[in-house]
């Protein structure tokens, strides 16, 4: 088990990178604590798999250093770093049984047969693989195969970290949550450092204690799922987390209020004060679930036009036009909304202010 430090990692797939856009990773600097469950979440092409391969040692960074428990491992191979990895598609030794697969990493490291047998049975027990332990690995279903892949990492008692590269891609939807639960249990039980790469927010947010949001080769925020949802540090995080994403409205500040196309939206004093000191393009952001859509103006209601109402069963997503801006609101089942004019309230405590994409704090 290990604490992993990344010092100013950059990577380019070109031999002589010149421009910033030649880099797949643009300066990653972070420390990941021993025993934590981390996720790297971002859209395809954001560099998350590149970063994972650099952590595992399958790829050498163009510049920067990686430390495991304070020891520089930047030039070490994956087997020397003592990590394990679960890939997108199950990677098994087809001609071996489940037992053979689980025993393989130990055999290669010269562990005694008795220890191998004991360890393999322990891990098979944890992963509910005892029933298939003598079956040929190639004949298993995809979810069992992924468990075996994971098991090959778990059998090594000294494994520094287990890395996952979108491991649930090929799993049937209704089995996914079962595996997610298993992973979480294993983490609680064994406290191994786990790093999980995915573009799927459900997987990242469910699995990890700390989620790093990546976009265009940079980590824009690391935080707990709740933090990412309630306090996004960057407009991309606001957009990417949540469905639909956060609403953003370009605004100017006047006293303690934000002006959006003539509409007046009150802010809390502290936020407004911070905003007045900040330069750059200002936007307010608010989550669709916090917008309160009403059929009367009330106090400080902003007039909007209801354009579309989409029923999703448990709630409706209402598309609102505020001047030239589109707002999406989540309205619970049973609360009346109709097309035409409505008034929307922006609760002060859920309004976030962004300058040039970064949150104002």
């Amino acid at each position, binding site marked *: 088990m290990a604490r992993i430090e990344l010092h100013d990692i950059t990577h380019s797939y070109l031999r002589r990178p010149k421009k910033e856009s030649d880099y797949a990773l643009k300066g990653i600097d972070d420390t990941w604590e021993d025993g934590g469950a981390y996720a790297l979440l971002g859209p395809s092409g954001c560099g998350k798999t590149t970063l994972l391969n650099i952590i*595992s040692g*399958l790829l050498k960074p163009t510049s920067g250093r990686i430390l495991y428990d304070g020891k520089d491992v930047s030039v070490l*191979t994956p087997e020397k770093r003592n990590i*394990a990895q679960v890939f*997108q*598609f199950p990677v098994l030794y087809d001609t071996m049984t489940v037992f053979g697969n689980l025993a*393989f990493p130990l055999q*290669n490291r010269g562990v005694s047969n008795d220890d191998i047998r004991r360890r393999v049975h322990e891990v098979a027990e944890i992963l509910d693989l005892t029933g298939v332990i003598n079956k040929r690995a190639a004949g298993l279903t995809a979810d069992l195969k992924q468990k075996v892949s994971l098991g090959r990492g778990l059998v090594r008692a000294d494994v520094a970290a287990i890395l996952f590269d979108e491991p649930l891609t090929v799993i049937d939807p209704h089995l996914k949550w079962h595996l997610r639960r298993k992973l979480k249990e294993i983490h609680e039980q064994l406290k191994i450092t786990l790093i999980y790469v995915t573009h799927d927010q459900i997987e990242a947010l469910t699995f990890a204690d700390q989620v790093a949001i990546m976009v265009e080769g940079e980590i824009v925020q690391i935080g707990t799922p709740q933090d990412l949802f309630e306090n996004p540090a960057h407009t991309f995080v606001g957009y990417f987390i949540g469905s639909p994403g956060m609403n953003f409205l370009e605004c100017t500040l006047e006293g303690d209020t934000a002006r959006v196309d003539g509409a007046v939206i009150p802010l809390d004093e502290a936020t407004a004060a911070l905003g007045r000191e900040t330069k750059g393009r200002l936007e307010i952001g608010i989550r669709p679930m916090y917008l309160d859509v009403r059929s009367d103006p009330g106090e400080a209601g902003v007039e909007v036009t209801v354009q579309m109402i989409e029923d999703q069963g448990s709630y409706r997503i209402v598309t609102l036009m505020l001047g030239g801006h589109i707002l999406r609101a989540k309205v619970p089942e049973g609360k009346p909304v109709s097309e035409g004019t409505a008034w929307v309230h922006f609760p002060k405590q859920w309004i976030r202010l962004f300058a040039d994409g970064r949150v104002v704090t």
Partner: protein
Amino acid sequence: MDKWQDNKAWFLVLPVFVIVAFSALIPLMTVVNYSVQDIFGPGEAVFVGTEWFKEMLANKRLHDALLRQFLFSGLVLLIEIPLGILIALAMPKKGWGVSTSLVILALPLLIPWNVIGTIWIIFTRPDIGLFGVGINSLHLLEVPFDHTATPLYAWITVMLMEVWHWTPLVALLAYAGLRAIPEAYYQAARIDGASPWATFWYIQLPKMRGVLTIAVLLRWMDSFLIYAEPFVLTGGGPGNSTTFLSIYLVKIALLQFDLGPGAAFSLIYFLIVLLFSFIFYQVLQRVGKGEKG
């Protein structure tokens, strides 16, 4: 409504049926017909039942040719398959080396078989051939190298021709199989601390099973039917040492014009090839049972 359309595809396949009928089925039936008759001349044939089959199965020279054939094809597989895999493993995986090595490898496959025979005859001639003269000038051999005089040397020469000619095919197939293995398997093996040998044995070999099955079947059938190389080199000699099945068959059927026994021989030959191909296929399938490619 025009429901006939669905059947149009049959018209497209029809030419193939006609060609197969003329090129395979009709000749085959002719052979079957000949194999049960004694033919004296046009219109003069007597039905003899299984007479020719009995005769051929009891023929000592056929037994010898068959044994020779098994030994030869067995050696071909034992040499070409491992050698082909080795070459494939040694080939570069990216860069300019890939296309260069592919072209070099494919060269023997592009040369017509009679030219190959001629090349090797000249190459191995003890008087002027580079190989023949070269090996004799070393004075290592008790009997000087001459494939027209010593059966063993004739064998070695035929084997060399065959291996030189066809190992590239096995190598190309194996190379294609290797390239199809996803990178993740190699990464997993590195992470699991697998040695190069273990990586070969547990990943590369099982993943090549499909293409190797094809390679084994192709080389088996093809080498079992070998004709051109020994025919060009020594015509089956010296003595009968390189008289493989097809050479003997041609001797009976064309040179002696024994059509009946020749036809019976052909059918036996055909069944042997078919039977062994089937056995190889089954065995190779069984080896990786439970695996889905």
